[in-house]
């Protein structure tokens, strides 16, 4: 069975599991919203300030919410040792990892789709004319987040204090992603929105590097 097909089957399983309860998704969205609102107490933004600080705030909210959401990826499999069942099946280990990465990507994207309009309203930032370019930046940033986050979820699933460990490991690694995403988003929020090619290329590069590393290391990641 090809990796892609196996990953697709596993993606179906992850989606089914999550959409049955929707707990994780709703908690993620609400948490990100809380972060966004909290920031508004920290400073009362004028329009220009919103445009300047907004992207940073948005991406920090996504990173925080994401690193909490990514924890259960692998710890959910520990309840009945279902990860063993997946590892025994005739599929490549990368298919298991890829299935989870795709699921996390979808969940995170849904959360972002809900949050970005709310954020635009709360901080009076117009999204007209930049929607598709913003979607591109969001997708690239989210890919980096979910690729590294899923790998680290597998790493921290074996450790004590995993709820604290995952953000601790993940957030420093993601600083280049944060910088690049914030800069790309900021250039889109300007008076004359423009897609900053350098930063977008950087984001793509970041995604490729870590996706490749995940692919090369997944055997060691999932083995007992």
């Amino acid at each position: 069975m090809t990796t892609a097909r196996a990953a697709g089957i596993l993606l179906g399983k992850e989606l089914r599991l999550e959409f049955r309860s929707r707990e994780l998704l709703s908690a993620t969205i609400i948490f990100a919203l809380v972060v966004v609102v909290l920031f508004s107490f920290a400073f009362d933004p004028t329009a220009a300030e919103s445009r300047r600080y907004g992207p940073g705030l948005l991406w920090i909210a996504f990173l925080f919410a994401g690193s909490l959401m990514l924890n259960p990826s692998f710890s959910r499999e520990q309840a009945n040792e279902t990860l063993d069942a997946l590892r025994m099946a005739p599929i490549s280990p990368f298919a298991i990892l890829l299935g989870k990465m795709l699921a996390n990507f979808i969940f995170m994207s849904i959360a972002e789709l809900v949050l970005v309009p709310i954020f635009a309203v709360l901080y009076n930032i117009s999204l007209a004319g930049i929607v598709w370019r913003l979607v591109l930046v969001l997708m690239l940033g989210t890919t980096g987040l979910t690729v590294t986050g899923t790998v680290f979820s597998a790493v921290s699933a074996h450790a004590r204090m995993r709820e604290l460990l995952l953000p601790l490991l993940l957030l420093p690694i993601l600083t280049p992603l944060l910088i690049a995403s914030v800069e790309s988003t900021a250039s889109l929020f300007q008076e004359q929105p423009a897609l900053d090619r350098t930063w977008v290329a950087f984001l793509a590069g970041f995604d490729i590097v870590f996706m490749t590393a995940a692919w090369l290391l997944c055997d060691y990641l999932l083995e007992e």
Partner: protein
Amino acid sequence: MKARLGITIVIAALIFLAGYAALFVAPDEKTMHAVQRIFYFHLPSWIAMFSALCVVFYANIAYLITRKRKFDALGVAGVEVGVMCCTIGLITGPLWARPVWGIWWTWDARLTTTFILWILYISYLLLRGLLEDPEKKASLSAIFGIFAFLDVPLVYLSNRLWRTQHPQPVIAGGNGSGLDPLMGKVLLLCVIAVFCVMVLVFIDRYRLELLRNECDELRFEIESRSAQASSLAASFAGEVNE
């Protein structure tokens, strides 16, 4: 034993020499004067740190491929030494910055990314502490180490693309860079001295880890032999009873 003592003395002498040179031999820098002398230890500690972390990267990959515990030992030794050098760099930096620019710290890109690096490798040590099974500890920290190392150029690149408050690099890159030849010689001496200290500590820590592994092996041997002996005794007793 004697050779190691000899080498340690030589390196100690070297670092004293370097310190003396940095403080008294090197010429005074025209804008920053005496404070600039911290640079003679600030830059070498970065070089030492970076070298240690390159070795860690190699050790991490080697462990995953060969599964030999010595590479895991090399990795943990390198990270501890790297964190030490990074700490020195992060302390000497502000000590230099305060008199020169009037601030202890700034969140400019280069400083920030170095701080991140420090956090990353401390997290490596934290991760090891939170994992119990030795094999998992070795393989998962190797994976994290590889990711952290791959992150380093990305962090640096994102920093270069971003604006920075650091002075134009004095040695290489940028216009108006260049160094007084005597300064250059002193710097080279300091780089070598600090590098040697780093290597010495690295090797010692590596040896310590290997010894710990050896102790574990011996403990394992003792336990397995006593287990065999007791099961043998039990089966004899069983036979006697029948």
